[in-house]
Every structure is written in C-alpha cells, then in structure tokens.
C-alpha cells in the first residue's frame, strides 16, 4: 500500500511535468490534435500540470507523515505534565488561578483521579470563535 501510494505519487508528478513541458512547447507554436496550440492553450495546460504536481506532492507528504508516525505510541509523544482541577472549583478561580497560569488551552477536570471532562465547554468555544479546544 505504502509503495503503491509512493509510485502513484511519482506517476502523478511525472504526468504533471509532462503537461507542463507540453504547455511550454505549445507556447512556442507546437500544435497538438485535440489540444490545439497557442498562448492560451499552453498556459492552461501548464496550470493544470502545476495543480496536478502540487496534489501529487501533498499526497506524498501525507504518506511520509503517516510513515513517520506509524508504530509510534501516543504515550511517547503526549504531554505528561498536565494541570488538573477539581469539579467543585468555581469558574472564576479556575480561570484566574489555573487557566491563566498553566498555559494549557484545556484544563482536565478530575475527581479522585477519575477524568470527568475538561474546560472549556463547547459553548465557550463557540462564543470566542476559537476552534479546537476539545
């Protein structure tokens, strides 16, 4: 699968460069059946080739990321030092004493070592317009 994606990406890049090359030749009066020739046709083909090349590079990059992270357990990457708060803590104290000081974007709420959830709530997220806190 990994090899297949890699070769598909190489194939996509090769085809993209073929289009770009053909587009350049069309700029210099090469005429092709169906595609024609001329400045507009050449530039259009080069643009399509450029898009294809970018798409192939992005998919290849995604493959590399997946490959790097494969078989790496979350426990090796995660942040282990996490500030936590008690569920009975008031919101004012939570924000002033914990949120501002810890630098964490979320504060896990725990009771007797049991994880219950975290602050902020989805409502806070939508009000602030911020994404991705939970």
């Amino acid at each position, binding site marked *: 699968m990994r090899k297949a994606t*890699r070769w598909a990406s190489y194939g996509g890049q090769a085809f993209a460069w073929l289009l770009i090359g053909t587009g350049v030749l069309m700029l210099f009066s090469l005429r092709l059946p169906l595609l024609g020739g001329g400045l507009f046709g050449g530039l259009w083909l080069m643009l399509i080739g450029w898009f294809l090349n970018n798409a192939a590079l992005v998919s290849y990059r995604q493959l*590399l*990321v*997946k*490959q*790097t*992270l*494969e*078989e*790496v*357990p*979350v*426990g*090796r*990457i*995660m*942040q*282990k030092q*996490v500030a*936590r*708060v*008690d*569920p*009975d*803590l*008031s*919101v004012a104290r*939570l924000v002033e004493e914990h949120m501002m000081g810890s630098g*964490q*974007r*979320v*504060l*896990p*709420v*725990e009771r007797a*070592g*049991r*994880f*219950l*959830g*975290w*602050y*902020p*709530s*989805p*409502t*806070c997220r939508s009000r602030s317009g911020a*994404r*991705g*806190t*939970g």
Partner: protein
Amino acid sequence: MTAAEIMTPLERLACVAPEDDASEALDELARRGVNQLPVLEGGRLVGLLRREDVLKWLALYEGTVDA
C-alpha cells in the same frame, strides 16, 4: 458556577490510549478539528496529545525515515 457545570463531559470527547498509534491519533485530531485529545488509561488521565506535540515529533524524526 463550578467547573463540573460548564466542562465538556468525557462522553463528548474523543479519547486515545497511550498505546494507540500516533498516526491514528493524528487522523482523529484532523477528523474532529481539535487541537488536543485526552490520553486515558483505565479511566485515568495520563496525558494530553496536542497537535503541536505531533508536529514537534515530526520535525525531529521525519528526516530519519527512509522515504
């Protein structure tokens, strides 16, 4: 008002385990559009997996992978 009243409860959070594959966790971060996931082991929070932690790891080790 207390933290318990306004928090996002566990049932509404996507969680990962420490032994889970990091690439799957990254997919989960992307799928949910979030920046961090709680890492749980037997109901206890053992860490936070943040997007930036994954990026740091990639920055350190990506070049060492044989492409």
